[in-house]
C-alpha cells in the first residue's frame, strides 16, 4: 500500500505530541505553580517526549509510539555534537527529575526542554515535507 498513510499517521501523532508538549512547557514555566493534578498532567505530557529520548540514551527499548525517539535523538545529537557526552546527561537528569515528580524547572532545564522541542519540530517538518512531495 502507499507509504503515505504511514507518514500521515506519524506526522499526526508527532505534531499532536509537540502541541501538548509546548502547552505543558508554557504551564511549567509559570511561577508559583503548586503540585496538583493539573501540574501532574502537564509533567506527563512533557515526559511523553522526554522519556523515550532518555530511554534510548540509556540503551533501553522504549515502549512509546507517540514520537520517533530515535529520529528526535539523532537531531539533538547532531545539534550538540561537540558537547554530546555531557549534554546527553542533562536529558537523562531532567527525565529522572520529572519522573520523580519535581516540577520546578531551572533555566538550564527550560533550555534543554526547548532543545528537545526544537528537535521534535524539525522531525514534524520532515514528515510533513514527505507528505507534500507525494
Amino acid at each position, binding site marked *: *500500500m*502507499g*507509504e*503515505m*498513510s*504511514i*507518514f*500521515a*499517521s*506519524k506526522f*499526526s501523532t508527532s*505534531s499532536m505530541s*509537540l*502541541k501538548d508538549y*509546548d*502547552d505543558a*512547557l*508554557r504551564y511549567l514555566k509559570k511561577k508559583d505553580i503548586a503540585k496538583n493534578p493539573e501540574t501532574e498532567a502537564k509533567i506527563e505530557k512533557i515526559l511523553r517526549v522526554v522519556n523515550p529520548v532518555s530511554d534510548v540514551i540509556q540503551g533501553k*527499548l*522504549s*515502549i512509546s*509510539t507517540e514520537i*520517533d525517539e*530515535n*529520529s528526535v535523538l*539523532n537531531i539533538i545529537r547532531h545539534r550538540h555534537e561537540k558537547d554530546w557526552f555531557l549534554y546527553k546527561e542533562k536529558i537523562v537528569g531532567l527525565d529522572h527529575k520529572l519522573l520523580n515528580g519535581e516540577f520546578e524547572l531551572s533555566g538550564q532545564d527550560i533550555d534543554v526542554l*526547548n532543545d528537545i*522541542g*526544537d528537535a521534535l*519540530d524539525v522531525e*514534524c*517538518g520532515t514528515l*510533513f515535507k514527505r*507528505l*507534500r512531495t*507525494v
Partner: protein
Amino acid sequence: MIQGYLESHVKEQIERSLYLKSLIPRKVYPELIGLADRCSRILDDNIGYLRFLLQQLELRNAGDVRDLYRSFRVAYRDIETVEYFGIPALHFQTDSSKFLNKFIFAIKDEINLPFVAPAVACFSNGYFWVHGTTNVMFMPIGEANSLLHLPDVFHELGHSTLFNRENDLRLGEIKITYSEIIRKITTYFENSYNKKQKRTGPPEVPMIIRHLHSQWKSWVNEFFSDLFACYTLGPAYTWAHLHLTTKKCDDVYKFEKPPVPQSHPSDDSRMKLLEIGLKKTGFSSEAQEIRSIWDCMPFVTSSSPIYEYQYAYPISLMEDLAELVLNGMKKSEISILTPEILNKLDDKSIRKILNEAWKNFWKNPNFREWETTTLRTLNQSYA
C-alpha cells in the same frame, strides 16, 4: 523586533485560514459533509490557537519565544494540511470519486465501523493512502474502473481505525489491543537483545535487534491494517497483495540495515502474516492456494533474503499479533469474514463481489467482460 515579526506572521495565517474556509463549497453531497465539516473545524481550532499565541506574544520578554515559534509552526502545518489534503478533495470531484465515496460508505456499514468513513479523492500519485487528520482516502484516478485492487480500501480503513482509536470509546478494545501489541513487541526484542548480549556472535546483532524493535513499532500499523483487511474481507485482500507485489515490488525480502529506516515491512513478511490471518478465520485452503502461486513467482524464486533477515520477522510474534488483532476486532464488534458468513452474504454485498472478482479472475476466461458488467451494476447501485 522578533515579537513584532512573529505577530505579523500569526495574523497572516489567521487571514489565510479565513480565506481557506471561504473555499469550502456550500453544497456537497452527503458523503462529503463530514469532510467539509472537518476542514472547517480544523481551521476554526487553529484560528483560535493562533489568537491565543498572539496574546502570549504580548506577555513575553524579548527572545523568550522558542515555544511560541514552534506552536506557530504546528498551527501553520495544520492549516496547510487542510489546504493540501482536505479542501482539494471537496473541489475535485468526478463521477468516479462520487461512486467510490458511496462505495466506501457502504463498506463502512457492511463491516460495522463506528466512525465516519473517509471521503475519497481520486488524484493520488502514491497509490492508495489515507490522511487521518482530514479523513480523506486518496486513490489513483483509474481505480474506479477495476475491482481487483479495491480490496486495498479495506487496508486503508485499517489505518483509519487505528487513527480513530484514541478518541472513540467504541474502539476502546482496539486501543487496548494496540498497547498490548507494543508491549509484546518490546518484550520480545528486549529478551532477544539480552540473550544476544550474553552470547558470542557478530557484534552488530544486538544493534540490529534494537533497530528492529524501532522498526516494528512503525510496521505494526501496516501489519494491523493488513490483518484488518484480511479479517474483514478474507481471501480477496490476500490476492490483491499478491497482485500488487507482482506489479510493484523490487525485493520481497527487503531489509534495510540500521540506521536506515524502512517504512513498510517486507512483502514476504506481509504474505506470511496474511496466511496466518486467513487460517485463523477458516480460509486455510485459500491460504494454501495463494501461497502455492506466490512461491512460484519470479520475485520469490529468483531472490533470497540476506543473513540478518532471519531476525526481522519472528513467526511467534506474528502469530501473537494475528491473535491479538482478531480478538480486538471481535470485541469492537467489527464484522469478521469467515467462509460461512461469506457464503451467506447477499449478492449485492461488496465483500461478496470483491471475493467473486478474484474467483472469476482465475477461472473465467471472459473476466474483463464479467468485471465490466459488475462495475456497471455497482455504479448504478452507488450512483
